[in-house]
């Protein structure tokens, strides 16, 4: 099937794949809703779809996990979270670890298990599946995902490179993902729409919203021109609701403005991805808050957290509870909550301006993928706290006194004077001595971590 999809694949993986007519036949005969179907329904209803993360190494355990989450959490979409070896294309290490000690894997090694088992998982649950991973080059994993009949695949040449590996050049990851997007185009022409979600959360540490949106819009644009017909744009909850709602609503507006016509675009909220509170009821409240943020922002889908987040990978019951708490936030239960729309409008105005200032110079250049790599090299695009050496990470984010994420230092980002001045003004009230800068930013990162309702410790506690 890889010849029809036009991707360059490792021959050992390619040899395991079924034929193209067989793959199309499986998709066409499936009676399950696809991920795009679920997203369309959620969008129409105004109630976001909810999806957990989940992945374990062994096949039986993965099957049991999916069934347990479906039974106890009733999510709209389910996930195969993939292990780190597979993400880095170390397929034989994943396979040998699977044989020797499957519990050592931090996700499901789909390439090692193969597409037949992928279909078994897909057939075992009502909810459609998405593959979530973190591969700078996800081509082989994509081929096995498609052979498994799965209808959603996360990632992108920027968002699955910068946070996940140290030294893969952006040209390399962008080209690998271009081939994946082109393969989605081939599938779409054959009537199979695969949702492509881009990972706007990036490093998940104090991510300025304009950076998330700019990077996602560039990835979504690159995907759309290759033929992708359904794009989910994910944004990480920062914690200040006016800013977060502005960001979610802007995804639709800016996608309409910049993306070619004929592409479905769905905003996705990732519940808070930073340092999570250890106290269960605070964690639960933050999960509820995330659900509410998503609904007010018009998100189509939410990726939920759990009240065990601070301690590692959650057990299935905690994950199911996280799903249900999130669903609760999106019912009529909290329908009376309304925001100060003037404040949202002000955030929207400035955020739109920042995103436009970031993406227009890149879109106005030559070959898009080269422009993106060049922009990261020169710092005109940047991501704070990058794992990759291919982003400069010269940007310094801070929270303002309400918790919104601003630029203390914008590095080499091509911002106008007005944008820079606005950020400076918003941070004026939080001016702290520079000789404690690391401590101050650490407090911003730990914003939700130490919240204690009984002692009424405010989010910005003075030490």
């Amino acid at each position: 099937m890889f010849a029809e999809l036009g991707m360059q694949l490792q021959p050992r993986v390619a040899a395991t794949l079924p034929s193209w007519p067989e793959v199309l036949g499986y998709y066409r005969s499936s009676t399950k809703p696809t991920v795009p179907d679920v997203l369309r329904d959620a969008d129409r209803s105004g109630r976001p779809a909810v999806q957990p993360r989940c992945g374990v190494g062994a096949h039986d355990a993965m099957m049991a996990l999916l069934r347990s989450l479906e039974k106890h959490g009733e999510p709209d979409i389910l996930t195969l979270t993939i292990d780190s070896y597979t993400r880095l294309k170390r397929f034989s290490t994943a396979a040998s670890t699977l044989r020797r000690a499957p519990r050592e894997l931090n996700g499901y090694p789909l390439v090692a298990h193969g597409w037949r088992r992928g279909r078994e998982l897909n057939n075992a649950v009502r909810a459609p599946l998405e593959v979530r991973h973190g591969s700078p080059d996800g081509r082989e994993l994509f081929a096995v995902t498609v052979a498994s009949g799965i209808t959603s695949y996360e990632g992108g040449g920027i968002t699955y490179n910068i946070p996940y590996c140290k030294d893969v050049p952006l040209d390399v990851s962008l080209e690998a993902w271009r081939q994946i997007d082109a393969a989605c185009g081939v599938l779409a022409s054959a009537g199979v729409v695969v949702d492509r979600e881009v990972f706007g959360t990036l490093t998940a540490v104090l991510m300025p919203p304009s950076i998330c949106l700019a990077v996602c819009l560039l990835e979504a644009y690159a995907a759309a021109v290759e033929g992708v017909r359904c794009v989910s744009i994910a944004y990480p909850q920062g914690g200040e609701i006016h800013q977060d709602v502005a960001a979610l609503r802007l995804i639709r507006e800016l996608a309409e403005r910049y993306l070619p016509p004929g592409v479905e675009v769905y905003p996705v909220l990732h519940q808070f991805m930073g340092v999570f509170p250890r106290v269960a009821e605070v964690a639960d409240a933050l999960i509820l808050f995330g659900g509410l943020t998503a609904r007010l922002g018009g998100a189509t889908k939410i990726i939920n957290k759990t009240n065990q987040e601070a301690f590692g990978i959650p057990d299935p019951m905690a994950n199911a509870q996280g799903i249900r708490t999130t669903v609760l936030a999106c019912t009529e239960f909290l329908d009376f909550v309304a925001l100060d729309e003037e404040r949202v409008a002000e955030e929207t105005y400035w955020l739109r301006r920042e995103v436009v200032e970031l993406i227009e110079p890149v879109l106005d250049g030559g070959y898009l993928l080269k422009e993106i790599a060049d922009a990261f090299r020169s710092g005109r695009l940047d991501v704070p706290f990058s794992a990759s050496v291919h982003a400069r990470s010269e940007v310094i984010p801070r929270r303002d006194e309400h918790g919104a994420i601003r630029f203390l230092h914008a590095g080499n980002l091509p911002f106008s004077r007005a944008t820079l001045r606005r950020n400076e003004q918003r941070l004026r009230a939080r001016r702290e001595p520079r000789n404690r800068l690391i401590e101050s930013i650490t407090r911003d990162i730990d914003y939700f971590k130490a919240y204690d309702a009984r002692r009424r410790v405010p989010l910005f506690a003075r030490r």
Partner: protein
Amino acid sequence: MTDRQVIIGVAKSDAHAVANHLIAMRLRLDGYTVINLGVCTPLEEFAEALAQYPDAEAIVIGSLNGHAYEDLSELPQLRASGRIHCPVILGGNLSVGSHKEADERTRLLALGVDHILDDADQIPLLLDLLQASRTGTTTTAA
């Protein structure tokens, strides 16, 4: 004023990026040119960076996973060959695991680490003191 340079990075077996970037942010705001080698950096790469930036005032290495001693085991050879000729500053969580913190510090200093800091916000002060002791004057980076 001449450009003040410093080389920073995270030890070979350690992938913790956040503290590394916080240090880079602080030093840049203090006016330094920061050569940041990032996470999972073998000592050999610090030596290569120093060859490229011989005027760097110090090498600042972070280690949060308790493997600092193993990760820096080549320091005596690199010192002896003259390839690491500037102060080496180490910080992070050094006492994870079986060794007691005081013992671990002694071991690391014996290996050739010059300074061990608990508080990353103290790095600029230490760099100023080191520079003053070299030149006999105190300069503050712009």
